[in-house]
C-alpha cells in the first residue's frame, strides 16, 4: 500500500472512492424513492435502499479515515500532504459557510424584501385581504385572506427575544452559553496538548471530553426546544415562513453540531484508547476543533439574526 518518497506520497490504487460513490448513490436514490413514496402514499423499497446505502457510506468513510490515520501513524504522510489536509479542511469549512449563507440570505430577503411587498399596496389589498407584515410572522398571507387569526400565538409564544430581564428562563440563552463555553474548552484542550499535557484533570482528554459533553447537552436542549415548539406552541415547519426559516436554520445548525460532536468524540476515543495525538501531530483533532469553532460562530449568527432580532 505504501510508497515512500522524500517529499511526496502518492497512494496506490484504492477501492474506497468507487465504493463511496456507489454508497452515496444508493443513499440519495433510496431517499428520493422514499420521499416520493411518502408523498404518493405508496409502499416501496426506498427506505431500505437508503439504509443500505447509508450503512455502506458510513462503513467506507470509516475505512477511509482509518487508512488515512494509519498512514499517518506509520509516518508516510509528508509535511506537504499534511498542508494539503489543512487547505482541504479549511476550504471545506468555507463551503459550509456558503451553505449557511444561502439560508441566512433567504431569511434576510424574506423579511426585508418579500414581507414588505406582501404587506403593502395592491399586493396586500387585492390578493391577501389586507395582510399585515409583522415579524415574527404569526398570521400568514393565506390566513389573512381567509380571515383566520394566528395559529401560533405570539409574541411571547414564539422563539424571539423575551427581553434581557427574562433571559434566565429563555432556553436559547442557555444554549448560547453552552456552545460558547464549549468553544473555550476545545481551545483549552488544544493548549493542553501543545503543553504535552494529555491526562489529568486539566489535560487534553479531560477538556476534550468536556467539550463533547457540552455538545450533547446543547443537542438535548435543542430537542427540548423543538418539542416545546411543536407540542405547546404549534410552531412547525408548516406554519409559514417564520417556522420555515426558524427550523431550517436551527435544524441545519443542529445537524452540524451533531456532526461536530461526533467528530470530537472520535478524536477523544482515538486519544483515550489508542493514545493518538501529540503536540506536533494532531491534525485530526485540529480539524475537528476548527469545525467546532465554525459551528459555534454559526450559532452566534443564529442567536443574533434568528432569536434576538426575531
Amino acid at each position, binding site marked *: 500500500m505504501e510508497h515512500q518518497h522524500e517529499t511526496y506520497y502518492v497512494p496506490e490504487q484504492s477501492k474506497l472512492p468507487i465504493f463511496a460513490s456507489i454508497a452515496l448513490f444508493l443513499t440519495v436514490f433510496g431517499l428520493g424513492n422514499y420521499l416520493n413514496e411518502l408523498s404518493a402514499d405508496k409502499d416501496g423499497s426506498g427506505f431500505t435502499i437508503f439504509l443500505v446505502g447509508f450503512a455502506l457510506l458510513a462503513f467506507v468513510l470509516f475505512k477511509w479515515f482509518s487508512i488515512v490515520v494509519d498512514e499517518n501513524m506509520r509516518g508516510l504522510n509528508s509535511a506537504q500532504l499534511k498542508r494539503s489536509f489543512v487547505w482541504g479542511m479549511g476550504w471545506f469549512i468555507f463551503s459550509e459557510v456558503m451553505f449557511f449563507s444561502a439560508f441566512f440570505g433567504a431569511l434576510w430577503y424574506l423579511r426585508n424584501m418579500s414581507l414588505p411587498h406582501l404587506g403593502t399596496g395592491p399586493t396586500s389589498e387585492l*390578493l391577501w385581504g389586507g395582510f399585515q407584515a409583522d415579524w415574527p410572522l404569526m398570521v400568514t*398571507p393565506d390566513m389573512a385572506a381567509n380571515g383566520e387569526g394566528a395559529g401560533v400565538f405570539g409574541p411571547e409564544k414564539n422563539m424571539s427575544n423575551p427581553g434581557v430581564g427574562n433571559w434566565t428562563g429563555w432556553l436559547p440563552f442557555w444554549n448560547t452559553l453552552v456552545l460558547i463555553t464549549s468553544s473555550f474548552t476545545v481551545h483549552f484542550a488544544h493548549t493542553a496538548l501543545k503543553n504535552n499535557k494529555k491526562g489529568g484533570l486539566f489535560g487534553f482528554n479531560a477538556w476534550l471530553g468536556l467539550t463533547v459533553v457540552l455538545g450533547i447537552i446543547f443537542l438535548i436542549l435543542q430537542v427540548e426546544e423543538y418539542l416545546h415548539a411543536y407540542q405547546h406552541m404549534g410552531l412547525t415547519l408548516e406554519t409559514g415562513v417564520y417556522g420555515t426559516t426558524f427550523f431550517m436554520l436551527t435544524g441545519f445548525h443542529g445537524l452540524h453540531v451533531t456532526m461536530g460532536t461526533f467528530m470530537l468524540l472520535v478524536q477523544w476515543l482515538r486519544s483515550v484508547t489508542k493514545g493518538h495525538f501529540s503536540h506536533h501531530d494532531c491534525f485530526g483533532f485540529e480539524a475537528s476543533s476548527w469545525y467546532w469553532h465554525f459551528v459555534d460562530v454559526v450559532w452566534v449568527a443564529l442567536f443574533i439574526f434568528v432569536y434576538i432580532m426575531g
Partner: protein
Amino acid sequence: MLSISKRSLALLFAFSIVVLPSLAAAGEWQLNMTEGVTEVSREVYSLHMTIFWWCVGIGAVVFGVMFYSMFAHRKSRGAEAAQFHHSTKLEIVWTVIPFAILIAMAFPATSTLIKIYDTADADVDILITGYQWKWKYEYLGEDVSFFANLSDSSREEIYTKDAKSENYLLEVDQVLLIPTKKKVRFLVTANDVIHSWWVPDLAVKRDAIPGYINEAWTYVEEPGLFRGQCAELCGKDHGFMPIVVKAVEQGEYDAWMAEKRAAAAAVAEAAKQTLTFDQLYAEGESVYETYCAACHQAGGEGIPGMFPAIKDSTIATGDIKLHLDRVINGGQGMPPFGEQLTPVQSAAVITFQRNAFGNNMGESVQPIDVVNFKQGQ
C-alpha cells in the same frame, strides 16, 4: 489551408460588420427589435441601437487589428516574432476607454429605466392574472373581467400539415381593450406558476409572480392592435398563451365596457334555464375541448404522473359535490374554473365528464346547481 482560413474569417468579419447592421437597419419587426408605439418603447429601441453600434465599432477596431496581424504577421510571410510582452500604458488606455463608453451608455439607460418605473397617476387600472395557460383581465373598479385563451382557430392548426396562418398562435378569443391617450397601469400577478406578460410594441414585459403584484404601465397614442406572448416558461403550454391588446379611442372603449356589462347580466340570466341532457352533453364536449383537453387530453386519459385521467376518475364517477368543487375551485395543479366558465358551461362540462369516456353515470348537472354550489361556499 492558410489562405482558406484567412478568407473565411474575413467573410465572418464581413458578415458581422456589414450584413448584420444592414439587415437590422433594413428590416422591420422581422429582423430587428420593434420600435413600438409608445415613448418608452422608442427610447428602448434607440438604446438598443446605440449600444449595438458601439459594439459594432469596437468590434471593427478589435477584429480589424487582429485580422491585419493575422495577415501581416504570419510565419509563412517570414514574420519574425517580436518579444515585447507588456505595457502599462496600453493596459491603462484600454481599461479607461471602455469604461468611459460604459458611463456614456449608463445615462440614457438609467433615465429610461426611471420612466419605466413611474407607475403613478394612472387613468385605468387593469389587474392581469396569469393562469396555466391563459390570461385573466380585470378592470379595477369597473366590474368587468374576462379570460383570454388561445383562439380555437390557432389551436386547430397546430397539428395540421398546412402552412400556418399569419397570426398563428398569436390570436386570442378575447382581446384586451385599452383606451388611447390614457395612462394605463397593469397590475400583474399569477395564480399558479410564474408567467410573464409581454407585448413588444408597448415594450412592457413584467413577470407575473403568484402571490405578488408587479406594476407596469403604458400610454398608447394611436389606435392599433398589438400582439405578444407569455415570456416565462410556465409549463406544458407556455408557447400557447398569447396576448392581444387593442387600443381604441375613448368613445369606443366606453361602448365596449357597457357591452361587457350587459353580457355579464345575460350570463346570469342564462344560468336560470334548465337544459336537456343532450344540450348539456354537446355544450360540455366543446367546453372540454377548449378548456380541459390541454391537460386531461382529448380522450380523457390524462398524462400519467402529471394530470389525472377523467376516464374512470374517482371524482368524475363519484360524489357530484366533489366534482363541482374540483372544477370550480381547482386543486393541486388544477386551475379553478369557477370564474372563467359560465354556470351553463360548468354544468355542461361536468355533465360531459360524468358521461363521456365510458364513465356513463347517466346523470346531468344543471346551471342552477352550479350557482347554488358557489353560493353555498
